[in-house]
């Protein structure tokens, strides 16, 4: 039986080894996140100063410039994206969860999933054709539109999921009290699902906050403040891109700083969203 024991020992050895390797794999994956953060904090942390947040970009080769207009620009673009994307996603999801029947629901869901998978550069092409060319302007509107349609699928699918998770007993209770359908939705179902919906919106927001590719041919870039909605506008991810590939050390340092600010913002929103969700899905899943 010693041969059998030896074989068993070998198999146990292999088992222990392979399982340890899977642990290593997980470690490597998680370590990547901390490396990224570490580098950004190290290189970007020292470059974040008051100038960065308050000054406009300086002429080429001169130091002392900042990204004030890019920060406000990103805020404007994201505001517009939210205003465009969230209502469409949210209201569309209400239709799917509460009003629709089989085939239409299928088509809408399919379209949303399709839109979700479209590479962001292709969304940029679409926004250029549909907003920039007719208006003959690179603009905040075009950029906000591109980012907005990227927010639609995430908002729509998540909202639908969370609304469906609200148990029917709540709906029936409301109906029994004589509430109309829309009143039920507005006052009972949506508040019950609100945590999940908020999470979905925050995650969609964080997703598009870092997008650069669709902005390349829509919002274009602007050294100054951008008035209104019909002018080109600067954004943080775009500045990161431009400055990172340049040869000027001052610009490169600013790129790190902007990267840190951007990633910090995105991570904070993600953590916030997931904590909201974990804190309590306010209605138990049925």
């Amino acid at each position, binding site marked *: 039986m010693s041969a059998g024991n030896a074989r068993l020992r070998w198999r146990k050895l292999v088992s222990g080894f392979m399982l340890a390797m899977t642990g290593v794999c997980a470690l490597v994956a998680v370590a990547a996140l901390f490396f990224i953060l570490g580098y950004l904090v190290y290189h970007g942390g020292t470059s974040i100063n008051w100038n960065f947040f308050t000054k406009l970009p300086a002429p*080429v080769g001169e130091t002392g410039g900042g990204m004030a207009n890019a920060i406000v620009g990103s805020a404007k673009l994201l505001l517009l994206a939210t205003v465009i994307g969230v209502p469409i996603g949210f209201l569309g999801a209400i239709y799917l969860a509460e009003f629709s029947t089989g085939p239409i629901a299928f088509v809408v869901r399919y379209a949303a999933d399709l839109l979700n998978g479209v590479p962001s550069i292709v969304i940029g092409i679409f926004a250029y054709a549909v907003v920039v060319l007719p208006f003959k302007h690179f603009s905040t509107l075009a950029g906000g539109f591109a980012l907005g349609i990227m927010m639609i699928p995430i908002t729509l699918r998540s909202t639908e999921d969370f609304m469906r998770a609200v148990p029917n007993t709540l709906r029936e209770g409301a109906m029994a009290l004589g509430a109309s359908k829309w009143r039920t939705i507005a006052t009972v179902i949506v508040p019950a699902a609100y945590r999940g919906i908020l999470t979905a919106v925050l995650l969609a927001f964080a997703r598009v906050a870092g997008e650069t590719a669709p902005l390349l041919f829509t919002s274009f870039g602007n050294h*100054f403040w951008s*008035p*209104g909605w019909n002018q080109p506008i600067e954004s943080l991810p775009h500045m990161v891109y431009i400055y990172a590939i340049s040869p000027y050390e001052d610009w490169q340092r600013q790129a790190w700083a902007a990267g840190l600010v951007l990633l910090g913002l995105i991570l904070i929103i993600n953590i916030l969203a997931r904590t909201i969700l974990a804190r309590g899905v306010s209605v138990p899943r049925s």
Partner: protein
Amino acid sequence: MLRRFSALFVVALATSVSLYSQGNLLINGAGATFPNPIYSKWFDDYHKANANIQINYQPVGSGAGIKQVTEGTVDFGGSDGPMNDEQMKAYQDKHGSPILHFPTVLGAAVPTYNIPGVSQTLNFTPEALAGIFLGRVTKWNDPLIASANKGVNLPAKDIVVVHRSDGSGTTYIWTDYLSKVSDDWKNKVGKGTSINWPVGLGGKGSEGVTGLVKQTPNSMAYVELTYAAQNNIPFGAVKNSAGSFVKADLASVTAAAANSSKDMPADFRVSITNGPGKTAYPISSFTWLLIPSKFSDAAKRDALKTFIKWALKDGQNSVEALSYGKLPKEVAAKELKALDQVQ
């Protein structure tokens, strides 16, 4: 709490937005990275002097500048490769009126390199340059390079060629020169803002190319003089048509343009590469602003015209500090007259 905060935020945003749109005129331009250092200084200085005029110039490459001014998505363009007849016709067909070229400064495309251990100025013959960019000369110690650089310890390493990945006027200037000095180049590749490069890595914009050269040992690229100068990367001298090796600087670039004022065509589209003159730098060029001849917005038209007048006179005082050459006086005078064509 959240609601109150978001309402406040939206109000603040809206107020700030409306504040900034009071009385400010924003003019958008796009194009060449070649003159971007001087343009960004000019637009900044001009804005400081005229607080309500903001000229937003995006250095996206001459190719994009030509395209976007033709599409009408920007108010003016910038290019160091003058628009060819086909492109000018396309503009005319689309807008019903021609597009005008206005030279602004003189610049030079220089061969920069990053060879560890070599800090001297290398001499490049036209044959060497064509050979390198055709991919025929592959090592730094190739005889074509070494023969012009006796006494320099050139390593036996591969040359990493870097070129522009985007449509570039600097590319146009460089390939225009190579087409003049090398029949091989002319037949195999030709000149243009976007060409089919036989070898090399692509960098985006003059900034991207300079960045690549700075980081990559044994690399070589062509960039505008300012980029090499500002970033302290060595660049070489080129043999001109009179047979002398000339390094690009104010004197040699100005010398290259010396004859141009006589032969300047009415539309200002001229090539001064490989020109005559013992002290002339052979890869020099004008760079142009592409201005529509018809503006629907009178305020923009007037603002741009005033800016160009400023650039042709006062603006010229700041070009030399950034290693660009001043326009010959006669050329500037001709341009001021031509400005009347902008309606």
